């Protein structure tokens, strides 16, 4: 079986790789490209730990075939911070102790970023609805929601 050559942009960088059709984007990110920030929690789209942003849309990378990202732009958790510092969401997660074990945190950060890109001033209900596809077992979500609220205040002020 010949591998397929894929060209894509990941976190702003042009990236090329070879992959088998059966490999998911999550698998290629983690195994072949070294982006281990996205996590495998269930591999069937039910926990959100593998969330990435694909051409501006929030998706579970375990349910995207790597071959499908030809010509697309992908943002992973590794693309949130810049040389100038952490993204407000990352900063607020730290200040609010919104992570305990931290395994779900990359997925939540990416999902929350997609939310704020789409709606920079969400209500609590809108935040909870948007993040319903990200499971956390440690925090009970309370401090995650508060961090997103605080980050949205920062983001919408600077918008």
């Amino acid at each position, binding site marked *: 079986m010949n591998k397929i050559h894929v060209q894509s942009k990941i976190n702003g960088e042009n990236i090329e790789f070879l992959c088998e059709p059966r490999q998911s984007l999550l698998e290629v990110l983690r195994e072949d490209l070294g982006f281990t920030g996205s996590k495998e929690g269930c591999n069937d789209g039910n926990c959100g730990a593998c969330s990435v942003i694909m051409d501006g849309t929030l998706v579970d990378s375990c349910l995207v075939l790597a071959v499908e990202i030809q010509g697309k732009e992908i943002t992973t958790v590794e693309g*949130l911070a810049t040389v100038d510092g952490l993204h407000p969401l990352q900063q607020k997660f730290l200040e609010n102790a919104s992570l305990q074990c931290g395994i779900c945190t990359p997925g939540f950060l990416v999902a929350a970023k997609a939310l704020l890109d789409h709606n920079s001033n969400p209500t609590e209900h809108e935040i909870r609805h948007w993040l319903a596809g990200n499971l956390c077992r440690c925090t009970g979500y309370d401090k995650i929601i508060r961090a997103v609220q605080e980050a949205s205040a920062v983001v919408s002020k600077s918008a």
Partner: protein
Amino acid sequence: MSNNSDNGKYKVIGTRPVRHDGAEKVMGKAIYGGDVRLSGMLFGQVLRSPHAHARIKSIDTSKAEELEGVRAVVTSADLPKTNEDDMIDLGEGMTRLKYIRDNILASDKVLYRGHAVAGVGAINQQTADEALSLIEVEYEVLPAVVNVLDAMKDNAPLLHDTLTTDEMGEQTDKTSNIAAHLQHKLGDPEKGFNEADIVIEHEFHTATVHQGYIEPHNGTAMWNPDGQLTIWTSTQGAFVVQKQTAAVLDHPISKVKVVPQEIGGGFGGKIPIYLEPVAALLSRKTGHPVKLLMTRAGVFEGTGPTPGSYVRLKLGADKSGKLVAGDCYLAFEAGGYPGSPMFCGCMCIFACYDVPNAIVNGYDVVVNKPKSAPYRAPGSTQVAFAIETMLDEIAEKIGMDSFDIRLLNAAKEGTRRVDDLVYPRIGCVETMEAGKASDHYNTPLEGPYRGRGIATGYWFNIGFKSCVTASVNEDGTVNLMEGSTDIGGSRTSIAMQFAEVLALPVEDVNPRVGDTGEIGYNDVTGGSRTTYATGYAAYNAAQDVKAQMIEIAAKHWELTADDVEFVDEFFKNKKDSSKQLTFKELAKIGSADDSPVIGKGSVNLGFHIGGSFATNIVDVEVDPETGKVTILRFTAIQDAGKAIHPSYVEGQMQGGSVQGIGWALNEEYFYNTDGKMENSTFLDYRIPTALDLPMIETIIVEVPNPTHPYGVRGVGEANIAPPPAAITNAIYNAIGVRFRELPMRPDRIIAALAAKRESEPMEAVAGS
């Protein structure tokens, strides 16, 4: 918010610094067990039994071995030979070595669907996964038993040919699924019941539920030709992995090094080992490192849930509401092998109250389910469900407030428990009083089909062993090496306790979790012990550093150590008050002139060294047409002794509460008639999502633990004990139905409402 009642007594403790490992975790750079990458690494997968109970007649791995890309296949035949009677002590008393090895890779029988049967190592994950379907296992399917009461019957299918009952310390002759019967007795229960004004008795059932950590189990192993075995894994106890893996493989502990990685949740479930020996065997066979990552289905089907349970509880009270007698019969599902936390359930059933006459009979029963593993206050939730709902029933009978009946009976310092423990200073009363005075409890709840419930729960703290070493850098920062894997921010809480002694900024203390080769022995991160015990060790190490720094100052000032003191961040010359040095200044001096400062703290703190009580208040709304329960408001109250880092104490309270909410309303292992678990995905094993919950309010109570320098009580666990009971009480308040089975699913609520309407046609349902 924490009530830091010390009013400036502490410089670091009680503050909320950003955790030391925070940046790398929010950047996705932290290395969890699944992220480990080693040169030449192979990928593994485990084949699991599709049957709940079967004899293995043969395993043919040849086709799998021939698949291109497969490098090795292992089965129990690759483990050392086990004699039936070999016994081993892995820290919890003697158990059969066969049970331990068989749970890793089944030998003659599979005892639950998901039981590991073989392991494959291949050049990539896809190939390893594909190879599983080529392994041919011939099974002789046997009848399965998946309910604790059924398993106790005389005609139940037997899981083990050699298992007899440990009947209160004496082994019986009769083979059985009942592995143990334990009894506690206090006073004269028969007399107590005879003299009681009110006696009620009920039966309770709880379903099997899983810890539900988002990170599946993992294990990477490299077996060098010289016999050195290195394991990288996400675990709650690197030394447990070392000891158990060495035992399974019959390999010297001295040749096993465990390097714990960051861990994505455990709650007790990542104390047992599963994949590590399989990875080791595959590595030995291939000469390469091999990594295994468990599938989600494998996690649900192959790793320890908490026991499903049956509890029968009888309570006797006088007409003032004072409990005078208690009689509890409880049976816990151990899963395929003995060892449920039945003894903890026995300890916890009356733990919140002064019950002068009580008897508890506990049974540990094997069933065709995965071997149970600890889950956050194991056994406490199951029994709190029983007693906390029955207390409300008594309160209702005599027209007493729910908090008042609990306060009347609350355990205090000096209360003797049914297992003969006498309580030291505890905060049971204080958490209840905080609940009664809370804004939540004093805010009226209005609206149809709405109700409020409260409950209290308990968990103890184990002490056991921890050690840390601290080395002082020339710039006055300190490297703190400890051995407690950090699941929830503990490395920072431990660093804070170190920093407090020396009045250092916590950012100047660099905590690191070491591997088994670089730190001394540490017991597990579990049992609500870490902040307590490893913090205590850090405190001791800081005292040791302080003493050494005093020596350095004394030498510098040409004094003896008695003439130097450490006060208010300064090392002071008692003979000349103009002379004082900060820690930083002294570190610089010491690094030039003195031997390196290495502080050590090493503790062994006993089994039962504290206790934390948790109280919940919950408001619910029930949809009477669908049976769906919405949590409107939830308050978690807990005695932390002293909250070192209040944000992480709050986090523990919130996390345990939400696990309890899931346990109460939706979570269960669903079995078909063949005893196979059907819902082994996060789709159908339904843990709460962000949309299912309100904010979780927290109230931290601080009744200092007299056995700890800062008064710390471990808070990790007690918070999961009361939520199902509190929700049950709230549902009763809302719709007049008392549930005695978990989960309280929507269809059960509809059925109960229908039954209620039929039996009381003229009586209004609450709120309608």
